């Protein structure tokens, strides 16, 4: 494989990492969570992120999805 083609391919693979991340709705929500200054808002964003699949369908179908924290 010629070196120029190899370098171009390597560049394309490198760039695909960012493309993949931004294509994942979970990543977007997680990024929003990281940017949240308010902890309540952050928790909500995280809960939404964790309860959605890539398709947008909820992972957990009903209420009571979060484990009860230890006393």
């Amino acid at each position, binding site marked *: *494989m010629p070196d120029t*083609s190899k370098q171009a*391919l*390597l560049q394309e*693979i490198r760039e695909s*990492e960012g493309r*993949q991340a931004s294509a994942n709705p979970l990543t977007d929500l997680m990024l929003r969570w990281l940017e949240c200054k308010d902890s309540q808002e952050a928790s909500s964003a995280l809960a939404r992120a964790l309860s959605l699949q890539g398709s947008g369908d909820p992972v957990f179908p009903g209420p009571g999805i979060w484990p009860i924290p230890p006393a």
Partner: protein
Amino acid sequence: MPKLEAGHSGNRITFGCSDLNSLAQAFVEIDLAIESDWIAAGRIPAALVDSVFRRFLWNRGQEVIAEHFELYLTLGESIFDARYSDSGADSNGQLFLVLNTESSFPLGVGSTIEELETCHEGMGAAFYDTLRQALYRWIRVYDDHDASYRIEQMVEWAEGEDDPDSYEIPKRDQDLPQCLRSGESAESRRSLDSFPVPAEPRLKDLIETALELHRASYSMERPRVDEEWLEYQRSYYSLDMPLPSVLLYFRPGDAVMACFDDECGYWGQETPEPNLIIPFRPSDPGSVRQAFTVLETVMRVLVLTTRIKTLIEDGEKAKCDSASTSEANSN
């Protein structure tokens, strides 16, 4: 997770996109993948990594190996399934190719050892030593040494009981081929390549394959895993010894088999340590190349082992056929 099975049914990639991306780049750097592979993989690094593994295994005898062995090759950031642990963080930027076994490949060598001894005295023992040593460099082998250790344990346990004579303990020595009973160590015996090659084509093929196995096995050093880290893994996760990939016995129902069957009952209670751990850094093409060279060596060793088994079985079948014909003629 590529699997050393013909069907390639399972995939599970549990480490981060970043590692996969680095690995995909390393494959391009070391010419394991080209642009057409990238396009065929839908321009997705994980798919490229998966397809490169599949092709690599397929081109190196995966189908032949999967016919005989039940081995699982896993790619991950831990040396065992760590879904329920937090061990992912301690891999120090490394990924691991891990070889585990589900069942042991039985290889009966007693009659072949004796047959070789009739060709040249010492040749059968040399064949056994060569086979054991070549395999043991890469995978765990259950053989007469393990049986011997198990028998010692059984004797100790029986001695602690009220009626020690009531325990039936396998007798290893009487099941050993005559040439292995002397107690002479493998190091003091002649090497297999010092014997003249037998004239009989099947035995000639057998010896040449065993020598090739030895060469393949010793062509590469077993990858080094940080001992301190491995010790930590062993103790923290209570890892047991690796399950044997090969059972090297002499005759069906012999002491080695009896001890193996006895020990089987205890295996699986703890997570076994893998037979082989190949650590590498996905961001370092040289490290990835080295890991694949090791993997290639292991696969060559396994392919040659299956070849030896086939040759042994062909010989036994020919003897059976010949005995049946003689019996029919005498009637």
